[in-house]
């Protein structure tokens, strides 16, 4: 016994390699495994958090652009100023400029402040009148000229406040910043506070942001997206008309008819390369070919649309080709078997079956096209446009701008109020993109077929 115990004590116990207890090495390897998995999760988390953060900042900065500070007070439209001839003739009245309307407006504003007993201490008359937007007289003039019978009556005016007062309500402008600001004084903001208490200064929903055209640097409060929305709509329409037929026709040829030869190879290589050419290069192409060579007008939606069509074409071709390829060969064989010609087989059978896929690809291509900015800068769509393009066919040649270009244009302006507008424009742009993408997903879900 003693021998045995002595013997067992003499032999050093070999380290036990149990499968139930993890060895150091295994523990290390398992820890590395866990770390590796966490890296992966962290990478995804980083991109998700960044995405969420970006969207939140945009919503945070941009949602306020859908509200706009306005004064509501009665404006009596003095006939003596607005219609000197007194016969309510629209052409005669059009001779009164905004200066006349400004007078009426400011008088009404001051009268209201006095009538409500709101103190304007520390403010000169000019300080008070400066709190009304420079765009307000123009708005009033348009209202009156549209309905000359209003002259001589008193209307309930909803009058734009200046951008700084608007910013004060939204928290962008504070008493501290106003001290250093040449455009607004703390006293004016105190008056604004009193006006809010009296219910004169409110922030209703800002329809003008969606319908107005762009406004000059000094009037952020009046700037709107109207021209950009029309321009983008025209462009998407033209892209749809030019790009989809050409893209589908090219895909049909390449998938169903093209013989395997050098020319076809060249086309294939070209399409995949075009898909990777930087967008700005397409802008240079547009400038050189469509504007300098063909002499089409700068900043027009037609040129913008043509450039974007060329950019979108590869996307649509790639999507359409995979949709056509997904149609099983048995369909083709059956069609040919009952005596259809190759052309009939394609147009009567393959194309209708590939349609959902083509539509989905087209919508996604258009969504990318809608957000494209860089090439449009080169063809002059960043210029200041404050007239709506005409609604007739010739409107595609009128100067216009596009949603993403407007985003960029506003971001370049000095007044921080334009950054808010810029973010507001992004929100509208993103809403369109979400709608298009959801439509594409629904289409795919609804019509997707598995053979």
């Amino acid at each position: 016994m003693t021998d045995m115990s002595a013997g067992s004590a003499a032999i050093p116990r070999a380290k036990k390699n149990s499968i139930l207890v993890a060895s150091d090495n295994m523990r290390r390897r398992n820890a590395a495994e866990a770390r590796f998995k966490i890296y992966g999760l962290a990478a995804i988390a980083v991109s998700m958090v960044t995405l969420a953060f970006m969207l939140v900042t945009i919503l945070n900065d941009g949602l306020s652009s859908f509200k706009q500070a306005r004064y509501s007070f009665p404006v009596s439209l003095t006939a003596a100023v607005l219609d000197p001839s007194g016969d309510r003739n629209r052409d005669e009245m059009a001779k009164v400029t905004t200066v006349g309307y400004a007078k009426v407006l400011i008088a009404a504003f001051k009268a209201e402040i006095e009538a409500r007993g709101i103190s304007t201490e520390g403010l000169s008359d000019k300080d008070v009148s400066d709190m009304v937007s420079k765009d307000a007289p123009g708005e009033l003039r348009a209202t009156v000229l549209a309905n000359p019978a209003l002259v001589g009556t008193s209307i309930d005016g909803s009058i734009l406040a200046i951008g700084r007062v608007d910013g004060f309500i939204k928290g962008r402008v504070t008493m501290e910043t106003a001290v250093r600001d040449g455009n607004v004084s703390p006293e004016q903001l105190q008056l604004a506070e009193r006006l809010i208490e009296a219910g004169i200064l409110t922030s209703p929903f800002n329809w003008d942001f969606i319908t107005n055209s762009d406004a000059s640097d000094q009037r952020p409060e009046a700037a709107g997206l109207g021209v950009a929305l029309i321009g983008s709509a025209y462009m998407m329409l033209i892209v749809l008309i030019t790009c989809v037929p050409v893209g589908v026709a090219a895909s049909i040829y390449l998938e169903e008819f093209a013989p395997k030869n050098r020319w076809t190879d060249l086309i294939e290589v070209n399409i995949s390369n075009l898909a990777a050419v930087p967008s700005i290069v397409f802008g240079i192409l547009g400038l050189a070919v469509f504007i300098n060579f063909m002499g089409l007008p700068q900043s027009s939606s037609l040129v913008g649309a043509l450039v974007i069509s060329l950019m979108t074409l590869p996307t649509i071709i790639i999507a359409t080709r995979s949709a056509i390829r997904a149609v099983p060969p048995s369909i083709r064989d059956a069609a040919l078997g009952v005596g259809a010609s190759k052309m009939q087989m394609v147009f009567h059978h393959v194309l209708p079956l590939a349609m959902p896929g083509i539509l989905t690809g087209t919508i996604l291509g258009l969504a990318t096209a809608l957000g494209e900015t860089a090439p449009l800068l080169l063809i002059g769509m960043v210029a200041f446009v404050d007239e709506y393009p005409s609604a007739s066919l010739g409107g595609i040649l009128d100067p216009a701008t596009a949603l993403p270009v407007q985003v960029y244009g506003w971001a370049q302006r000095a007044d921080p109020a334009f950054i808010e507008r810029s973010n507001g424009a992004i929100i509208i742009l993103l809403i369109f993109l979400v709608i298009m993408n959801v439509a594409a997903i629904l289409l795919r879900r609804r019509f997707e077929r598995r053979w």
Partner: protein
Amino acid sequence: MSVTFLLGLLIVLGVAAFFLARMRALSSAGGSVRKLHSLPGYYGWHGFLMVALPGLTALVLWLIIQPMVIEARISATLPEALVIDAAARELTMGEVRRVAGGLDAVVASGALSTTDSNKIDTTSTNVRDLLKNAGVALGADVTPEVLKAAQAYRGMAGWGAVGRSFLALVVALAGLAYAIKVTNPDFRARNRVEFVVLGLLIVASSIAILTTVGIVFSMLNETIKFFGQYPIGAFFFGLTWSPNFRGDSDFGLLPLLWGTLYITFVSMVVAVPIGLFSAIYLAEYASKSTRNWLKPLIEVIAGIPTVVFGIFALVTVGPFLRDYFAQPLGLGDSGSSVMTAGIVIGILNIPFISSLSDDIINAVPQSMRDGSLGLGATKSETVRRVVLPAALPGIVGAILIGVSRAIGETMIVVMGAGAAAKLSLNPFEAMTTMTVKIVGQLTGDTDFAAPETLVAFALGMTLFVITLGLNVIALVVVRRYKEQYE
């Protein structure tokens, strides 16, 4: 007859031809469709095509040739001094066209009758004021030669319009007569129509090539002009970039190239690890259901327009980096910097790298994983030692595509990188890229004869060649990799 009206007329004629030919086919077969070679609709389409194709071709050719002929003849009548070289001729002809257009406007407004407009001369009438009243403002007074040329121009254009309509209609009617004549039960209308349709399909597929040709030629032409005015060596190896619209500019590419590559490098430092680890997680660890909603969510990033990222760089990332890194570290106080643009482009590139790598990792055969796991390797060891080395060429291709996208990215650098062309190592300093300068030199008032504008085309060409090269390499690498496992 205006072009729009003529187009409408051609379409109406074409539709008429459709029905006429279809009727003719049916009646020639005695009303029995089975005796016809093709379905009746094909005879109709044949009629339509025979009218529309020749008519449109004639119209388009006329529209292209007429201005050339008229310009040649007018400039032959102008005195030598006005058309001494190409630039002077272009200037004079532009003036002639403007005056002619102005006279059209005057006649349209009713201020002059058509005959009077051809009789007026500069001694008795102040043409400039006349045109101004019709809404056409001219830069200078109209010289007698130009006025005469403009009147001749209008005369020829008027005859041209008549000739155009006449030719197009005659050709279309001839087509109609031909279509009706050949229509009989044995005529192979379907083959003819399908031949034309096939031709249209081929034309459509060649547009991709035309686009590439257009890109290359539009840039090559101006680039050659630029190198005629500025030495090619000084462009590619110059160290200073200081365009000056009064002339005497320096266009050294190197500072722009440095800015571009530095920003691209930063963006890749952000995008490659995040994108690659996302791809590994999605391909190797995530369950099928997680993958199904996580992958589209990452791809949402790719669907956001770059101008939105630009705003993000300008408003959020730039000031954040400036206030918390650059200023405390004493590295500068500029919101727009290499870091700002690089990080934001990196975020934009995550989904590209991740979804390309994901596809590539998925293409690695399962048997290789099973072999490694069977030998007792953990999952991460399998990924690191087996899957990634096998997928490496493909991943390199994906990264190259990412690099080419970062080099060509415009909006983010325009809004986030700054405009100062500098050769500096400090990542918190504002630097600029080729794309920024292309936008800068080509927006606003541009003079397409000055090197200050033309340099943008040389930059565009350089950019095109670089990105094209990267893409071709990437495609070759990826293709070779894919073949390896197919």
